[in-house]
């Protein structure tokens, strides 16, 4: 331990840790715009500069390793002036349209303007002009609001292994964009939205479907149904002051009804359905010498990534549609039929923690007879917006139950929201399918938690099933490369695009650190701990769906409605 003096008070620091970490532990607030937990410091924004005894200039605390006793002044007049001037410079090159910005009141730049008391335009001058990029079905880029912190570039490259954007040009003319500054849609972008999550300003946002949803809700001819993904109910409460990780599925269901949705379904129901299909597919592949390892297919960013960057692995992907698309398919077939509604009159909305789901819903394979299975996808953040717009506070709305026939879920389906959840649910059901018996212990601790790569071996009737769970596509790349280089021990791999899974998805509320993500996960684990129905094959509604409509897993109808195919894509990554 090294004892350093922070603003006149002694504090114990870990030798070698970056000063910013020490300051945070000491409860000293130093702002940053470019810091990304877990990645090398970039030192670009200079907001975290402090005065260190014996050093001439101001030192960025994010990149200063503590090695010896020293004296630090975090808020000296010089440091505060520098910070304020930096913010003034940023604002001087920022479009003054906060009132119309998606990030209004949820913006790090606004917060800094407020904190540092910027009340004057001291450095007026010419502003950089850039064109908005509306080409992507998932993400809207507005480079004029960009502060060039570079977090999106680093997340895209270093965490996700995609690298479809980079800095272009130099100096004050630099901006962030794709190759040749083309639209995001022709780039290798997988629509994961991790760039949106780390963006401190409104330069990146999801492409909003709120206007379409509002129009549908107003349209008397439309029957508007809605589904919500497993990870949404444990995150949406954050926006209403509820504890991080608290499950508010009931209140959310109530609120969605008050918004005017005709039916509220739970995507966890089709997560259970996915498990029935996917576990069957796995067992089928294992027993019939099918292509292994089988790769999960719930995460649409991952799917596009395989299609673009690892087309040779397309055959390893499970053919199951994602739970969102399975729900979309059964709504516009079984449900429409049951309720005697023309599928054209159903407007099917999903609420997802994800921006890539918007892309997925728009894929041509996800349409039948010219009708899209899902008509609109709202992110968790858009849901919050919609609730605010209608004066609904989740802390106040009484809990209600989801609608039949797709409202019942098990905790297995709910676990889909966290990395490793699909694997746990699949193991539970695969074991039952192969042996006819339930597992003695449902919880597979090895696949839980925030690690990017998790592995486990499960004994199924004397047969060892080797599984891996990966989240964050950078980790997936490394695993796929190992497999390409001959690694052959794995049977089944769960891949989630976002680090930690859907709880940390690109459509989730801003400002969550690793700790918050862990608590969101904990919320899901808590449900699994408390509730009694913990296996997908024990979901009574799923059983009924098979009995009344689908027959059995992998049946002809299942294949038609619940399975899909993938195509190699050429993209300028």
């Amino acid at each position, binding site marked *: 331990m090294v004892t350093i003096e922070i603003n006149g008070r002694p504090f114990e620091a870990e030798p070698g840790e970056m000063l910013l970490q020490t300051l945070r532990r000491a409860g000293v607030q130093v702002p940053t715009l470019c810091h990304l937990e877990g990645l090398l410091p970039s030192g*670009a*924004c*200079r907001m975290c500069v402090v005065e260190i005894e014996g050093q001439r200039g101001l030192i960025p605390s994010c990149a200063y390793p503590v090695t010896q006793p020293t004296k630090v002044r975090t808020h000296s007049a010089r440091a505060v002036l520098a910070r304020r001037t930096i913010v003034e410079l940023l604002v001087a090159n920022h479009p003054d349209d906060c009132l119309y910005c998606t990030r209004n009141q949820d913006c790090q730049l606004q917060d800094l303007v407020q904190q540092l008391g910027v009340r004057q335009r001291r450095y007026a001058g010419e502003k950089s002009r850039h064109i908005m990029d509306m080409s992507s079905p998932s993400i809207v880029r507005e480079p004029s609001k960009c502060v060039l912190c570079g977090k999106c570039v680093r997340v895209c490259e270093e965490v996700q292994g995609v690298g479809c954007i980079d800095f272009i040009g*130099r100096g*004050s003319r*630099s901006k962030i964009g794709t190759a040749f500054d083309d639209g995001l849609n022709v780039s290798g972008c997988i629509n994961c939205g991790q760039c949106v999550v780390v963006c401190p300003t409104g330069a990146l946002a999801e492409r909003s479907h709120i206007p379409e949803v509002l129009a549908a809700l107003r349209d008397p001819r439309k029957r508007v149904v809605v589904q919500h993904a497993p990870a949404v109910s444990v995150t949406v409460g954050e926006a209403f002051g509820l504890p991080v990780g608290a499950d508010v599925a009931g209140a959310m269901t109530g609120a969605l009804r008050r918004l005017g949705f005709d039916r509220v379904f739970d995507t966890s129901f089709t997560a259970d359905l996915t498990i029935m299909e996917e576990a069957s597919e796995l067992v089928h592949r294992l027993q019939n010498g099918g292509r292994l390892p089988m790769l999960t297919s719930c995460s649409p960013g991952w799917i596009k990534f395989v299609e673009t960057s690892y087309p040779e692995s397309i055959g390893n992907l499970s053919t199951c549609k994602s739970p969102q698309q399975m729900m979309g398919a059964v709504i516009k077939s079984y449900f429409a039929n049951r309720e005697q509604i023309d599928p054209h009159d159903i407007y099917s909305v999903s609420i997802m923690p994800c921006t890539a789901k918007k892309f997925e819903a728009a894929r041509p394979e996800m349409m039948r007879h010219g009708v899209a299975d899902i008509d609109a996808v709202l992110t968790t953040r858009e849901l919050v917006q919609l609730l605010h717009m209608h004066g609904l506070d989740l802390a106040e709305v009484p809990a209600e139950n989801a609608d039949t026939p797709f409202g019942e879920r098990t905790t297995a389906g709910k676990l889909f929201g966290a990395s490793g959840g699909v694997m746990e649910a699949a193991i539970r059901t695969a074991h039952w399918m192969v042996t006819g018996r339930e597992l003695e212990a449902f919880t597979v601790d090895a696949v839980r938690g925030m690690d990017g790569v998790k592995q486990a071996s499960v004994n199924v009737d004397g047969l060892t099933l080797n599984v891996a769970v990966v989240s964050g596509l950078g980790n997936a790349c490394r695993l796929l490369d190992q497999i390409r280089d001959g690694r052959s021990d794995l049977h089944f791999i769960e891949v989630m695009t976002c680090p930690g899974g859907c709880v940390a998805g690109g459509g989730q509320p801003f400002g969550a650190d690793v700790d918050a993500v862990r608590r969101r996960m904990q919320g899901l684990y808590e449900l699994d701990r408390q509730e009694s129905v913990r296996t997908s094959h024990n979901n009574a509604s799923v059983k009924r769906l098979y009995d009344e409509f689908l027959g059995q897993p992998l049946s002809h109808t299942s294949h038609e409605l619940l399975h899909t195919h993938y195509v190699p894509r050429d993209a300028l990554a």
Partner: protein
Amino acid sequence: MTTKLLDRRTAPATAAAFATYPELLSWLLDDDGSQDQAVRQQWEDRIAELRRDRLVRPAIFVGAGTCGLGAGAQETLDVIRAYLDLHEVKADVIKVGCIGLCSAEPLVDIQIPGRTRVMFQQVTKDKVNGLLDAVLVGQIPDKLALAQHRHATLKPWDDVPFLDEHPFFAPQTRWVLANCGLIDPAQIDEYIAHGGYQALAKMVRQYTPAQVCELVEASGLRGRGGGGFPTGTKWKFACMAKSDGKYLICNADEGDPGAFMDRAVIESDPHRLVEGMVIAAYAIGATKAYIYIRAEYPLAIKRLQVALAQAEANRLLGENILGTDFNLQIAIKMGAGAFVCGEETALIHSIEGRRGMPRPRPPFPALKGLFGKPTIINNVETLANVPMLVDRGAEWFSSLGTPTSKGTKVFALSGKVARTGLVEVAMGTTVRQIVFNVGGGIPDGRQYKAVQIGGPSGGCIPEQHLDIDIDYESLKTVGAMMGSGGLVVMDEDNCMVDVAMFFMDFIQRESCGKCIPCREGTRRMLEILQRITRGRQREKGIDALERFHSVLHLQDLAETIRDASLCGLGMTAPNPVLSTLRFFRDEYESHIYERHCPAGVCAELLTFTIDPDRCKGCTLCAKKCPTDAIVGSPKQLHYIVADKCIGCGTCLDVCKPGAVLKN
């Protein structure tokens, strides 16, 4: 043996031919006085020939560096060759580098057997025939003769001054430039005959790497690229670092506008740099080295390629250097044009194939640099100092200079000065000596205003500080810095606000854009200067108010950029403004309060009028005016509409009777 050697001189410059050269070096190194007298004589003859102490036929040396070529040296060379062919004169024509006196280019030296070598200036192609007619028969045309080289045994010419008496050369101490313009840079044996590679041999045979670092540290050599960090100390960090690979990088990305020292050294004496690099690599334990050089220097790159091939063929590079187990490869990397790549971490990123954006330090490159390995980055001049330094010792080196700055410094002297070129002076020389003695003062009877030193990161030295020493610390006291060696002289016709604006524009364009203070701050600073120099014609709304408003915040802005920027480029970015503001505040005030540019440079602040007595009504000015601000009929008096005039000065340039007046 001698004949064999002579044969080789005309042999094509292939690796096979080079492979025989080390005989000369090994003879020099291993001569313990026991060798046969006849053999010794042969070698000594060879060396005398290479040093041109004895000639059998005339030798004509043409300064063919970039600046010489720019002044027409190639044409001069062609005419010389044609002359020799036509008159069937047997003479050696040698392309040498640049001796440094750019303003006298093209420079041609002629040495005829038995006599000293004479330098002739401004030998353009039309003067060649007359010159050769005279010199080859032993006459020296006074008009062209600049000076003769002093020589111990050769007979001097009467009435021709010696080079070391010439005002340009007399105040100089030429260590790094010792061979520049004298030897053929494409011949390794000339370098060896002038003492080259013997320092390297001494180091790898007699010194441990740590001892080399000690020696360099003791000499007080400091980085010549601008920072001034003690070179030996830096080497020690890398020398002591444990790693499976280390790198040496020679920074030849001479980006400062107004600096060309590195180019001239490489073009004129590339082996000095190569030898310095091999010694440095030995000292730090690097087995791979890079020379990061600007792509705008094609000739320097070519010379380096030749030098590296020769050194490798002579086992002065590559495997088992000079028979030891020390190996080194040197690769040339061409910079792609980014000033910020002068910054160490940006340069590393550039070599790695990335955008040249700096990263925070620590970790310092000496511990974690190129590809994550310990890396030492030294500037060309620093490395070129090394061979002579280690050969003659730390004490010899440190005997010259000031208490904190040892040795010499090379400057590129340019701008409004009579003699421009490459200058090497002892540390402690005054700026006045450089400008007025070496440079010959301001031409055309104009008044000295300032000298800009240190490039965009540096500052200006006004009249009252002309007697300041060239020394890392002294220069800082007047808000300037040593920098890499650009010295641009300005006279009363230069506007200091305009100069500040030029540098801000440069820095603003060259900022990498990574950190906010530098990216956004330099841009706003430039805008402030642009507003100051803006005429009323283009102002509307509250522009005039903004103009004052922004000046008020210049100080806060400058401080933040200096304090909070990521790299040296940003930290020093406000210097051009702060420095000119410090010494030429009155000029700023004239611009701000009176909208008047005292030097008559800032176009929008100029007013042009037509002298009714001189105007002939030729209409030329009206025709050429880009904004149609001049009215008048043919043969009638013309008139300039002030509101339309943008101050471009075209009318002034085209008016034949001189009727346009500038105020």
